[in-house]
């Protein structure tokens, strides 16, 4: 069961939301509805969040991200639709149930921190517990633990005004963590921070997430941040969901021109991984091959090096053209002695790192699954350039049916982008 399930959620602002709803159902555009005095916050939004998932909601300014996230703890009333949390419809909650829900199950980090200036850092972090009625000693203790978690040890008695923006947002995060809720809502929580601190915070959030396994809904209008953090991404426009999927889905198969435009300016080399630039190795060598066979394979394909795998594709290393020629001249019988250890890379390595590795290694780089040791293919310079040139065709090559002469001489390690 999903942790959160949002079903056809619609929020209309204005004094007569139901009139706006009628116009929406009649297919009127947001502009027409606005002209009639209503504002569409979000319309028929559906998605779900798994337990422990970090879901990013992304979109341009005014696309309804905040409206949406604020419906999850009912800071906004819901005009139509349902929000199920752990199977319970929170839109049907009574005031008392809602209070309890907000106290125990869900907490929020705000874009502009929203700290209480007259309270110390500790008392800020303890606010949620204080509201729950936890006694003073216990809540201070738990607040201090949360502050330590976000790296603010030693600042417990300071006031928010004495802290930098990055530190203030850590307090905001500690305040949300201190209540130990299952769900964390973060509305552009890092947008007000400068880029360096922002990167730190993203990094720390990922680490915290790995440790604490919270369900996080994170809003951003920054695609880099979305791709960096999100397990899945909800992309919004004009209050509607235009695409819902993993970062790779969104990059590789933009659902429409809007998503494509959104994706256009992203620094692909930071976002994409080796997997996207992977091409299958059409011809490989096996340890049992003799030097002549290997040399032949290389000459056929015009290779300067060839990768060596076991029959089950377990990666062994590479053999360079020079080494193979030398071995033939020397009349060597097998190739075991020729196999060079090679700097293999994992499929999830960032493309930036792949580029660096390629610069240091004269041949194409094998991509090896870290756990199984299986060779998934190779990354070549051309492959990387093609992906960065936003030319999906190069990546998709791996989906082609295997080469005609597949059977014994060549092994089609057909594991490409789609894997």
């Amino acid at each position, binding site marked *: 069961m999903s942790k959160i399930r949002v079903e056809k959620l619609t929020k209309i602002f204005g004094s007569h939301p139901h009139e706006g709803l009628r116009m929406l159902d009649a297919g009127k555009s947001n502009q027409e509805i606005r002209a009639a005095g209503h504002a569409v916050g979000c319309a028929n939004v559906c998605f779900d969040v798994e337990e422990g998932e970090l879901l990013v909601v992304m979109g341009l300014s005014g696309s309804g991200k905040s409206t949406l996230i604020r419906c999850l703890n009912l800071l906004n009333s819901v005009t139509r639709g349902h929000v199920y949390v752990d199977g319970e419809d929170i839109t049907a909650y009574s005031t008392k149930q809602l209070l309890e829900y907000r106290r125990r199950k869900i907490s929020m980090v705000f874009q502009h921190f929203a700290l209480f200036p007259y309270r110390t850092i500790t008392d800020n972090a303890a606010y949620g517990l204080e509201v729950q009625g936890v006694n003073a000693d216990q809540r201070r203790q738990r607040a201090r633990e949360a502050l330590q978690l976000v790296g603010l040890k030693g600042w417990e008695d300071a006031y928010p*005004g004495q802290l930098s923006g990055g530190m203030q947002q850590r307090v905001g995060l500690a305040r949300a963590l201190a209540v130990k809720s299952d769900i964390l809502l973060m509305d552009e929580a890092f947008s007000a921070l400068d880029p360096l601190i922002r990167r730190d915070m993203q990094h720390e959030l990922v680490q915290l997430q790995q440790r604490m396994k919270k369900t996080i809904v994170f809003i951003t209008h920054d695609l880099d941040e979305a791709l960096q953090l999100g397990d899945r991404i909800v992309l919004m426009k004009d209050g509607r969901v235009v695409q819902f999927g993993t970062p790779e889905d969104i990059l590789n198969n933009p659902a429409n021109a809007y998503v494509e435009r959104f994706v256009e300016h992203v620094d692909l080399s930071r976002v994409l991984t080796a997997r996207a630039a992977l091409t299958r190795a059409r011809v490989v060598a096996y340890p049992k091959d003799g030097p002549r066979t290997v040399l032949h394979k290389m000459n056929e394909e015009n290779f300067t090096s060839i990768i060596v795998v076991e029959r089950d594709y377990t990666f062994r290393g590479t053999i360079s053209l020079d080494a193979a020629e030398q071995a033939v001249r020397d009349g060597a019988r097998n190739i075991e002695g020729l196999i060079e250890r090679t700097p293999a890379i994992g499929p999830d390595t960032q493309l930036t790192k792949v580029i660096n590795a390629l610069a240091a290694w004269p041949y194409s780089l094998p991509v090896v699954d870290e756990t199984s040791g299986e060779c998934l293919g190779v990354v070549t310079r051309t492959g990387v350039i093609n992906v960065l040139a936003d030319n999906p065709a190069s990546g998709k090559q791996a989906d082609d049916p295997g080469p005609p002469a597949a059977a014994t001489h060549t092994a089609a390690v057909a594991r490409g982008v789609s894997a």
Partner: protein
Amino acid sequence: MTLPVIPKFPLARLLDVGLNWLTLHLAFITRAVASVVGGIIDGITAGLTWLPPWALIVIVGLLAWRAAGRRVAIWSVLGLAFLWNLRLWDATVSTFTLVLISTLIAVGIGLPIGIAAALSKRTGKVVMPVLDFMQTMPAFVYLIPAIPFFGLGAVSASVATVIFSTPPAIRLTILGINQVPHDLIEAADAFGSTRRQKLFKVQLPMALPTIMAGVNQTIMLALSMVVIAAMIGAGGLGGEVWRAIQRLEPGKGFTAGIAIVILAMVLDRITQRIGRRKEVAR
């Protein structure tokens, strides 16, 4: 051409009739109020004048030091000592008592009304015009009906003073609460605060500096009104001025006037700092 004569609307007569009726039927309440408030005023005045002046000056000095720092403390002590020296001590104490009582009542009434008006739009809509009325009506006018209700003297003076000095307490309470940043309110909501928790843990603490500015204004208005109220027998420093006017003694009049200014400055500096210090503490 002659304009048709429209008979004068008998507003004054109507008000008189109304007030007389109220006096007649509410007398038992107003008398009770008068005796209670009068008793309190007399008690405090007696207590304060029983203390030797130097002791009171030291106490005020210490309070000023704690609330507002050394500079204010020194000037307060010097100012009060000068009043003592001018032989105006008793008058100062009685004026101060009236201001104190009136301010306490004004804040006691103003704070809850201000909170109610800030939290409920409808209450706010009723309260605002009443405040405008109370503040633009010339202060003297309140004195006239106060006499039939409460008799001549300190009680009438304090009632008129309360009416005159409550509006800033209400206004600045409303302002302070309305000024609380929206995202702080949302943060309070998001963590599941009840309305009460939100009020006491977020709205009032955030509004405190503004509310204290309102209290400061209330004190200043109360002081100015207490002086005017000498005309209905409130006594004190205002009484000195009033006597000097009737006897045409400009020297005495100015002396009492300067004493009022000194008292005003002492009260102002001390209370002003209380609010401001809270703000600096962030």
